């Protein structure tokens, strides 16, 4: 006998013993598996965290922001972002952060008012200060702010101010709230429409399906941008900010639902023929039980992924409309509204900090995409 090969496993990493052990995944529910898979996706976690922080901060915009969005600091109009410090000019450390004082002086040559930094005076930042009154979510009054300056003749503009001296930091917070909520409500509405109409089309099929599909094709064949423009331009000028807000959301949702409806329909049609759904029918399940127990859970995860992915589209659409001056208007602030005021070249050159909302939009959209990626992976947790 001759040896053809010498074979003794040298590489035995990850080799298990003979007993089959019960793995934790064996008894894990679908959502658990999805979460375990999702959490391996570092970028998605990062995106999710960024969005969560944005949402929480902006939800409490009145409390977190030191000013209300329309409040003006006339003497610091067009002011640069004020950096806060812990270490002063003499190199001594202060536990409480501070900003340097600003003094307004008339420029002898140009005869314009200019503010300069006065490094000899420090304005310490306090937490939980009592300052301007506001009405939290329009419900109850308060004047407590997360941070601010005790002395109400001093001012604090971390991200600078706009032409009228309004605090950019606070305005970005309020804008984030508007834009994210438009996204959420828009996606929600689109989802409702999409699920209902797509569900009807997919479950009943036949003629109903035909009519709904033709309607969807019709809507999709209209170029979106002109349609938005037309609808938005048709909004009466005298409408209140709230009415405008709601209508814009509705307009965006009206177009967004078609995509979702098609997905819902397609998925339902496919699921109807899935073997486990057939097996459920054979087991004697009623239509209601088949839909709620077998079909809905199966496609909920896909729908959530779809929602996450369509979120940034709605946000960008709102931003674009408002940027063109056709969407939201002051006194409501949204990302688009803020960018609208940064439109001309002069302000871009002289006051680049007015473009910060643009940066926030970009960060949010990227974060949504990361999140969507992770969710897409997690939606099918059974593949390695």
């Amino acid at each position, binding site marked *: 006998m001759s040896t053809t090969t010498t074979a003794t496993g040298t590489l035995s990493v990850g080799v298990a013993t003979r007993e089959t052990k019960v793995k934790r*995944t*064996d008894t894990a529910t679908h959502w658990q598996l999805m979460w375990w898979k999702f959490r391996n996706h570092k970028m998605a976690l990062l995106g999710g965290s960024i969005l969560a922080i944005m949402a929480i901060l902006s939800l409490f915009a009145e409390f977190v922001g030191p000013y209300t969005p329309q409040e003006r600091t006339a003497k610091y109009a067009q002011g640069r972002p004020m950096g806060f410090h812990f270490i002063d000019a003499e190199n001594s450390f202060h536990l409480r952060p501070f900003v340097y004082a600003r003094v307004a002086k008339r420029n002898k040559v140009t005869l314009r008012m200019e503010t300069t930094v006065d490094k000899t005076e420090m304005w310490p930042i306090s937490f939980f200060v009592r300052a301007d009154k506001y009405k939290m979510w329009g419900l109850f009054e308060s004047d407590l702010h997360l941070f601010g300056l005790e002395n109400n003749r001093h001012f604090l503009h971390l991200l600078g101010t706009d032409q009228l001296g309004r605090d950019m930091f606070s305005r970005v917070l309020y804008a984030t709230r508007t834009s994210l909520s438009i996204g959420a409500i828009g996606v929600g509405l689109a989802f409702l429409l999409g699920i209902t109409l797509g569900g009807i089309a997919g479950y009943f099929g036949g003629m109903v399906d035909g009519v709904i*599909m033709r309607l969807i094709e019709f809507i999709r064949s209209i170029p979106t941008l002109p349609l938005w423009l037309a609808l938005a331009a048709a909004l009466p000028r005298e409408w209140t900010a709230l009415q405008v807000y709601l209508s814009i959301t509705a307009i965006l949702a009206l177009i967004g639902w078609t995509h979702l409806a098609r997905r819902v329909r397609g998925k339902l049609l496919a699921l109807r023929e899935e*073997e486990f759904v057939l097996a459920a029918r054979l*087991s*004697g399940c009623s239509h209601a039980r088949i839909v709620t127990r077998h079909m809905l859970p199966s496609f909920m995860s896909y729908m959530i992924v779809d929602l996450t992915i369509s979120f940034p589209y709605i946000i960008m659409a709102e931003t674009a409309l408002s940027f063109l001056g056709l969407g939201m208007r002051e006194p409501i602030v949204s990302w688009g509204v803020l960018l609208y005021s940064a439109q001309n070249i002069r302000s871009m050159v002289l006051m680049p900090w007015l473009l910060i909302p643009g940066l926030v939009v970009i960060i949010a959209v990227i974060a949504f995409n990361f999140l969507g990626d992770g969710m897409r992976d997690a939606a099918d947790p059974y593949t390695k």
Partner: protein
Amino acid sequence: MEPLIKIRDLDVTFPIGKSGFFGKPTAYLQAVSGISLDIHKRETLGLVGESGSGKTTLGRAILHLEKPTRGKVELRLDDEYVDLEDLNTKELRKIWRHMQMVFQDPYASLNPRMTVREIIAEPLVVNRKGNKNDILEKVEKVAEMCGLQRDQLGRYPHAFSGGQRQRIAIARALALMPQFIVSDEPVSALDVSIQAQILNLFKELQNKLGLTYLFIAHDLATVAHVCDRVAVMYLGQIVELTETEKIFYSPKHPYTEALMSAIPDIDPDRKMNPVLSSGERPNPANPPSGCRFHTRCRYVEPHCKEVQPELSEIVEGHFVACHRAESLTLQGAIE
């Protein structure tokens, strides 16, 4: 003896190529065309044919999972025939206690979001077969019968291999103690070394519970092994039907001969000699006139292209649909 299931002139037609405003179909595909068949109690009837010949559709139509467009299916229950056509949705659900199905793909036929216990229990729960404890007891009994262990029942399907999943699917089909089971290629998605376990399980359950099977398969050796009678389908029609031995030793239909000659035998000394060397499968939406097999038949005569042969009993218990069945001497898979 009276058959358990009587199938008469069954047609299943699918609309295809939708167009127009309301999605009116532009064409129809007859997946099952005028099939009549008796299935006897405690037998295993094999159904073979190439892909797309309508095996799955026939299986589903027998259960009325797919509504036949024409013809009827009758099930013998308490010495009386129930015509499935007459039943409404609720009554059909009751009938399905007696007729069940095992699907081809054990990865798709189990709801990934239910534990094995829930899956097997579902038919019992929705059919209100006793209280919670009775049901759990029944689930464990049927699971054990199918070779599943009690401590596995709390797991989700993804924790199981293909063979074990097929056991779960069989246990679910058996939970209501049906008389008749359609098994649609129950082993073709499984590893070769697992197939025998499942085939044996089918046999064992049949002996124990007196089950009747319609066994769909495309692997002829498997069919030869498990079936008592075999029906050969071609483009939606049954072309030959008889006992397994006769089908394999002395086929009477040219298509059966072609199928038999194409079986690759595991014995290297028995080289196969396929007779069907050319010709493509016709489009099922537009089947050939006359005998549907005439485009590929090597015994074709002008007559065949015009007149469709009927499935007729040429010898006792041997049904063939070929004009030349009586005159041809065909070769079987085994001499």
